[in-house]
């Protein structure tokens, strides 16, 4: 048996975040199925360990971009579930006043959350642009671009990584590889086993970690963040994760062999971390009470979202332009 090098408090920190992400996502799915919210939602269930681990290594002064599958990033960063859920519901009280929805949650001023993005790969350039701003401003913040396996096959991955490496931008790309782009398995469309290894082409360091283990991800990200912060340029971390749901909530994922989920459940991050916690003296009751608290928190978020008002119809034109908005939207 290996000795646990993390304290109970540290592990409970990861555990709490992971459980809260899952609780948020399960509530969101439930609301979607009940018809309480419209549109598409893409769930992070199965990717919680990676997200909790990564965001523990990201400091408050750092920035990040997120993706269509971005609820987990927001929760891991400390987003208010009420405001996130209200955004999913298209309510005025949501993070984006109901104008963005699930795929566009952002909290730029308070969380340095530069935005989730509906275009796969679009956050690569935006994250590098933010890193460029840090370099120009001379501050010591790092920007983390979060994206999935699918985004590594966009041209911008290569264009932007080349520039970020050449100009030594304080940038970390955190890739959650869940092996599926909608229905297409990564091995059918990509010739390398790993994705972060493409960094070699740009002389950029990288690491590949088990994304079901939050402390492995945390440690890899700590190294990456330190590298980027010290002026050495970008760093890539690839976390191998599982996507329990289909691409979107409601996708039965019939394209997947049943072994995928069997393996996923055997490696469930929350379950494995629970075992680690029990091994260092945590009781089942303590774990249950964390789950209970998360469920109550997310129930309250649903209640908040459900009871919040929709935007006023007159807000439809607002926020398109900073100046001269009225004239610019009329003609």
């Amino acid at each position, binding site marked *: 048996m290996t000795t646990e090098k993390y304290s109970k408090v540290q592990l409970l920190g990861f555990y709490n975040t992971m459980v809260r992400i899952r609780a948020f996502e399960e509530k969101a799915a439930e609301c979607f199925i009940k018809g309480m919210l419209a549109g598409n939602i893409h769930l992070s269930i199965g990717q919680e360990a990676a997200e909790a681990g990564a965001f523990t290594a990201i400091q408050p002064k750092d920035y990040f971009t997120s993706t269509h599958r971005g609820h987990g990033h927001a929760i891991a960063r400390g987003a208010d579930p009420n405001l996130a859920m209200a955004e999913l519901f298209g309510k005025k009280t949501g993070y984006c006043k109901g104008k963005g929805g699930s795929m*566009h949650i952002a909290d730029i*001023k308070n969380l340095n959350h*530069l935005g989730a993005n509906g275009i796969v790969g679009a956050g690569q350039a935006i994250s590098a642009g933010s890193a460029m701003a840090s370099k120009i401003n001379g501050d010591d913040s790092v920007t983390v671009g979060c994206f999935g396996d699918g985004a590594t096959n966009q*041209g911008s991955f290569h264009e932007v990584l080349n520039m970020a490496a050449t100009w030594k931008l304080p940038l970390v790309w955190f890739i959650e590889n869940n092996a599926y782009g909608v229905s297409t398995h990564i091995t059918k469309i990509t010739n390398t086993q790993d994705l972060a290894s493409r960094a070699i082409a740009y002389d950029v360091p990288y690491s590949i970690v088990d994304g079901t283990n939050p402390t492995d991800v945390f440690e890899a990200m700590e190294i990456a963040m330190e590298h980027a912060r010290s002026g050495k340029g970008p760093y890539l971390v690839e976390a191998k994760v599982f996507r329990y749901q289909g691409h979107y909530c409601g996708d039965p994922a019939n394209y997947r062999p049943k072994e995928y989920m069997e393996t996923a459940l055997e490696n469930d991050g929350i379950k494995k971390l629970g075992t680690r916690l029990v091994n260092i003296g945590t009781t089942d009751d303590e774990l249950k009470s964390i789950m209970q608290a998360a469920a109550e928190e997310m129930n309250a978020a649903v209640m908040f979202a459900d009871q919040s008002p929709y935007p006023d119809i007159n807000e439809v034109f607002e926020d398109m332009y900073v100046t001269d908005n009225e004239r610019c939207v009329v*003609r």
Partner: protein
Amino acid sequence: MSKTITISKAIGEALHEEMVRDENVFLLGEDLAVMGNVYAITKGFLEEFGPNRVIDTPISEEGFVGMAVGAAIRGLRPVVELMYDDFALECADPLFNQAAKIRYMTGGQCNVPMVLRAPMGAGRRNAGQHSQSLENFFCHFPGLKVVTPCSARDAKGMLKSAIRDDDPVVFLEHKLLYARKEEIPEGEFTIPLGQAEIKREGKDITIITWSREVNFAMESATALENDGIDVEVLDLRSLVPLDWEAIVRSVSKTHNVVIVSEEVKRGSYAGEISAQISEDLFDELDAPVERVCGLNICSPFSPILEDRNFPNPEDIRNAVKRVLNK
């Protein structure tokens, strides 16, 4: 006091003054640092402002325009240069799905105060992929402002306004205007976006146009004097925001309209303006609005063919006579 300088020099002055005024302004694009831009607009900038603010990029338009969006969200004011506006097709996503939409999608949480400068237009024998006028394309996407100056004074004053504007602005510079020498005021001045200018007053017909075609419209107007036709030329100067009030005033006076642009006619912004006039000012019109645009073809190389593909003064004269039935 005034001075006579080329339009490219006027643009360079605007960039220089704004970079001196605001340290958040920086330049990003192909061959603008060491070489100082294809038209020498930014010559000497690298030496003066340093490599953090004058940045030569690789040929990666999607990448560097997207990076400008990220930097702008963080509060910097990138002025990005495309070597040709045709390359906007290479960076369509960062421009149209990101820069234009991020403010709205986030419920107004951020501004994207960037400027995309792009040389546009035909007549330089650059063939199908380096000669387009894509105003319609830029104007389609809410969130962007679109500026199309013709004169040296406007190029300088409006570029300074564009850089100070908190919205993303596409600033279209006609390639064949760069070398024109014109008189502009000495010292610093700005010209607001969204104000059309009557370049020539007239009572019989309004020619609505922008960019290089303003000069052709003025030539036509002079020639039409001999035919006893009194032409008003309205230079829109910016397409978004559109100075609709100026259009209303002019059309209500002349009751006849020709709209001139270098765009491919099908789907042009000229057509959009025509539709708005037909919808809202129908009662003011004595005749249908006519568009004089480029042809519905790929821009040809051979000079004899290319010159057929953008409105020349004679095309404009003929259109005016058709509308007035003269």
